[in-house]
């Protein structure tokens, strides 16, 4: 085990995959000479050279399109999108091209490309550089999508994403890049796609979270003496671990979902609908989604922190759920806003 920051874990995963497979290439804006705007590809150019590690022009559609063509013809490109918003100008290449190549070739072509993108609020980047936007990609069968929650998750999931024969979008909460943790590297550190991970045992409620909210959910769970929460890191958003989540909720009888994204059409909506349909009658409380409000991410420090679920708020929401058996209003109702 090695202690490292999440951005170093990303770079370590890239380097290990590049060492094992000469077809892995890395490109994106400022990823080579500068080692990445968030230092997630530090040292790769020096070790692997300019053919496999390339700085691109500011051409998201162009270089993601190149990733599609390179992947279909045998390479395993890993392309970096600096901020998830910049994928908006290139979404076609991920959703409509990469995600369809296998289908449209009757299985003759695969598209083993990885798109890494930094996501999320908390660093004061304003509303055009703080979204998570996972639902841009969640409606396109053929794609896979994971969300990182810390250094081990970064190392393990990214390695699996690069090895996967399908296009995989890797969402990396920017606010976590600097956070340190112990990382098991090498084969033992690889985490499979499609499986949720239980990060805490508990009886009263199952809390499903992803990305930066895993830490928040864990802190909330640790803080209560009145109830014990099982915390699950969903890890793979598409295809998500239906069996794992359903069987966990069947045990506790209660499901709380913590998401860093607006209330409407969050990834948790899908989980809530599925679990609610499957376990109707077995649930001891309605499904509770703890999310951000339906507003653009605000800039000011206090507001930005308030925008995202935090441990105190999550604890309070779960307290109320357990006490009343009903879903509490979100905080913004107290501010006179619509639920």
């Amino acid at each position: 085990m090695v202690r490292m920051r999440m951005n170093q874990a990303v770079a370590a995963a890239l380097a290990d995959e590049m060492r094992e497979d000469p077809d892995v290439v890395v490109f994106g804006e400022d990823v080579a000479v500068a080692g990445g705007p968030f230092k997630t590809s530090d040292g790769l150019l020096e070790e692997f050279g300019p053919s496999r590690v390339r700085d691109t022009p500011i051409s998201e559609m162009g270089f993601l399109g190149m990733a599609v063509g390179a992947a279909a013809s045998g390479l395993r490109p890993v392309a970096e999108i600096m901020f998830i918003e910049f994928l908006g100008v290139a979404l076609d290449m991920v959703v409509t091209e990469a995600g369809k190549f296998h289908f449209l070739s009757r299985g003759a072509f695969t598209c083993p490309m990885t798109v890494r993108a930094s996501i999320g609020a908390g660093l004061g980047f304003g509303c055009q550089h703080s979204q998570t936007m996972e639902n841009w990609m969640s409606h396109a069968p053929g794609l896979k999508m994971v969300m990182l929650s810390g250094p081990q998750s970064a190392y393990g999931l990214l390695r699996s994403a690069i090895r996967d024969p399908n296009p995989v979008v890797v969402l990396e909460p920017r606010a976590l890049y600097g956070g340190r943790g112990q990382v098991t590297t090498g084969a033992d550190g690889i985490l499979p796609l499609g499986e949720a991970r239980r990060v805490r045992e508990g009886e009263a409620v199952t809390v499903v979270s992803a990305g930066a909210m895993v830490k928040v959910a864990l802190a909330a769970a640790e803080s209560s003496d009145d109830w014990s929460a099982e915390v699950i890191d969903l890890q793979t958003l598409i295809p998500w671990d239906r069996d794992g989540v359903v069987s966990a909720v069947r045990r506790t009888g209660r499901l709380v979902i913590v998401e860093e994204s607006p209330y409407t059409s969050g990834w948790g909506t899908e989980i809530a609908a599925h679990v609610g349909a499957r376990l109707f009658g077995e649930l001891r409380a309605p499904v509770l989604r703890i999310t951000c409000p339906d507003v653009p991410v605000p800039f000011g420090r206090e507001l930005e922190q308030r925008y995202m679920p935090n441990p105190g708020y999550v604890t309070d929401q779960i307290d109320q759920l357990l006490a009343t058996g009903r879903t509490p209003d979100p905080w913004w109702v107290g501010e006179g806003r619509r639920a």
Partner: protein
Amino acid sequence: MGDGQRMERRRAVANDRVARYERMVEIRAFEDRVQGLFAQGLVHGTTHTAQGQEAVAVGIAAAARPTDLVTCTYRGHGIGLALGMTPEVILGEIMGREIGCVGGIAGSMHLCDRELGLLPTFAIIGAGIPVAAGAALTAQVRGTDDAAIGVFGDGAANIGAFHEGLNLAAIWNLPVVFICENNQYGEYSRIDLTTPIEDLADRAASYGIPGIIVDGQDPDQTVEAVGAALAVARSGGGPTLLEMKTYRYAGHSRADKAEYRPEGEFERWYERDPINTFRARLESEGLLAAGAAEEIEQKVAARLEAALRAVEESPPATVDAMFGNIYASA
């Protein structure tokens, strides 16, 4: 239908000008037939045919190797046939049958044949341009001497993917040939309404790569131009933009009668019809004997009848085909 026949069809076009002529006749007759089937209501959805653009298709197929990956558009039946795909697998795809090249789940806009080098054809304007550059990146990183070809329409020269793809290919010196089939229209809009310059080849100057205007109605010139650009690409000389001046005889898609065309325009282009002029040239060179062209037409007609029968006998696309290839397994 098997591999052998497709490769044989490819070799014929690569090696023999009379075979190229025959393939052009086949493409024309195929597209006419497809339009007829749609008009009769026997096919659902839409289709985009390429009558008038046959010389571009055979030029590409004759010059490229099967290992040179090609991206092209929804107007792809002609290029598919030229590359060696059989009429039955393309018609089968158009008609949603199991015999289709993708099992009937993709349709007219989405043809694919990996062995012949055809990536799934693109229904999003311009998308195939950077993807072709990406296929060229593979050749460059792996150090093979394969190249890639990106085919697109004149309308695609106005979408961002064109600029980004050409720029990237140029700065990385990728082995790719960009072929713009300038058929004078994007949907119902004439090029001069959407594009402030007459020759799209001029745009190559922005990327510091050669931009060459080619007579897209002459199969000898298209083969020669594609071959020369591929040779440059293979030897490390980087990308080329070829603008093939051609003309779309039919409307944009099945429902379009192309009534927006100025009077006499079609007739002027038809005077230089690629099939008629090539036929006259081959006859004058003694490569086509008297009556040989008629024989070719009959042969092609019989071939297409057989293809249609094979498609009609093929069952509709299966549920297995729909679910079968969403995700690849390791």
